[in-house]
């Protein structure tokens, strides 16, 4: 059993290493990771500045409220595309090449998950820095920000695993594009990313409560407050961890359906 775990870990590392090397070769990608969030910060930061004056919103500065929202939205947005990589590897024959070697199926998927996770973490840190430069305040300090980054990585994992699974099963770019275009904005706006939950219509509050984007924001904001609510962090974070594990497991199962159709 331990041999299997060690082997999976080693192979996961090599599969991740391969992807990171590819990433480093395209420095433009890092720029892309940052451009969109910067636009969101600027646009929403100015557009909704006065939102905080609404009674019951809670925070003084909208930018403080917005930074975790943009971090999390960017995590969802960049991870939703990860299935495109899966399709590319299928079309190129790379996946088939791996599948005829003794490499563990889990390691192939994990490689993608870890790489996406690292990318999401880097992106999240950069947005936090950008927000700080724009004048956002982080009363929860380093610990709070660390929870934010972890939460956005976990949320990103959920969406990259789903996107990977979709890439494996449907094998059409249009499906991934469709999913990303249709889901990103509704999911983000049906969460507490830009608006306090208490100010939403009731039906929206229910939708937001069931939305994993809200879970990650609730965990992050609870940890980023001046007086962190660790109970809330644990509950929302726990749900997020469970969901991420479930979706990764699900995405590994899609190898079976792939091998039936190949």
């Amino acid at each position: 059993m331990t041999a299997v775990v060690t082997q999976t870990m080693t192979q996961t590392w090599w599969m991740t290493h391969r992807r990171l090397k590819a990433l480093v070769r395209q420095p433009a990608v890092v720029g892309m990771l940052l451009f969109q969030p910067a636009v969101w910060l600027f646009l929403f930061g100015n557009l909704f500045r006065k939102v905080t004056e609404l009674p019951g919103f809670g925070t003084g500065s909208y930018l403080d409220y917005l930074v975790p929202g943009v971090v999390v939205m960017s995590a969802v947005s960049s991870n939703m595309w990860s299935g495109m990589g899966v399709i590319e590897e299928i079309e190129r024959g790379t996946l088939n090449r791996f599948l005829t070697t003794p490499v563990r199926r889990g390691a192939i998927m994990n490689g993608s998950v870890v790489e996406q996770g690292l990318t999401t973490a880097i992106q999240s840190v950069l947005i936090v820095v950008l927000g700080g430069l724009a004048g956002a305040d982080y009363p929860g300090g380093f610990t709070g920000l660390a929870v934010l980054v972890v939460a956005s990585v976990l949320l990103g994992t959920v969406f990259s695993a789903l996107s990977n699974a979709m890439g494996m099963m449907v094998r059409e770019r249009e499906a991934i594009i469709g999913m990303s275009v249709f889901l990103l904005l509704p999911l983000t706006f049906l969460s507490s990313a830009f608006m306090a939950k208490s100010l939403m219509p009731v039906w929206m509050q229910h939708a937001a409560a069931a939305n994993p984007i809200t879970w990650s924001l609730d965990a992050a904001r609870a940890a980023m407050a001046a007086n962190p609510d660790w109970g809330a962090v644990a509950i929302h974070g726990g749900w997020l961890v469970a969901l991420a594990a479930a979706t990764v497991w699900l995405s590994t199962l899609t190898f079976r359906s792939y091998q039936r159709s190949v």
Partner: protein
Amino acid sequence: MTTHANNHAKNAAVEAGNLVKTYPGDVRALDGLSIEVRHGEVFGLLGPNGAGKSTAIKILTTLARPDSGSARVVGHDVLRQPDRVRRAIGVVAQRSGADPTATGRDNLILQGRLYGLGGARLRARVGELLERFDLGGVAERPVRTYSGGTQRRLDVALGLVHRPRVLFLDEPTTGLDPEARTAMWDEIARLAGTEGLTILLTTHYLDEADRLADRLAIVDRGRIAVTGTADELKGALRGDAVHVELRQSPGGVERDVVRAVIAAVDGVREVTMDGRRLSARTDDGAVAVPAVLAALERSGVPVAAVTVARPSLDDVYLRHVGRRYAEAEADAEQARELVGTGQGGAR
């Protein structure tokens, strides 16, 4: 080769029995395909596109699962012991699968690591393969800058990193220019000589199968139509044509004498004469020619020239499948166009 013919099936490098595989939309890719590949030989699966060659390879390399039937590679069951099979085989698929953004060397190193190799031994092995496949000059360049032939050589090197016992080559020269194709043929012929490596290759080129395969099987609509060495298969047609050109056209009586003399030679039949040209069919042209020449000399008939035309694999295909190879390929092409390109890769 025939000395191994009676070896027990257990000793076969690859054996498949009654493989059936149907794809969605009721496409029957394999319809009871059985093969047996002996240790150390180059075995060719020959057939037009869509005959089922690639599907067979996918099953034998643990990529796809058959609907029914069984297959073993170096004694391991592909369905029950896929990991053991994977350790024993090297696969060069139709689509390269090399990472285009990584260098040739990085691709080889990663491939080795997937088999648990590492350290100085892996580095040495990779260096050896780069040199052997003449990739030294491009080793540090990203694969996307490689020419078709270079990329194909890297593909073969990738399949060999872990020193497999059986190498699968799926259409190794499809899409290569003639020069790269000849180079790849030489490469495969060289590989065939090394360390008891067994090679199973698929091809839709008659000349490729003829040239590379020790034994070959013709695949038609998901089944094996016939198996044997190229010479056996052609020989079984009992049909080398021998053409003799005489110095001068024989007269009326002489004509019948000449005809009778030739017809009396062992294994020669269907003698026809047309002016100075004399034609006959024979089981084995190489054996018949000296006998025919000797008979003519004894009868005092001078000969100007002699030629032997061997039956081609195309003739073999015609005999066992019932149509010309080019026709079958054209049909396959048409079928693929009807289905559309939606399904992607070849089967």
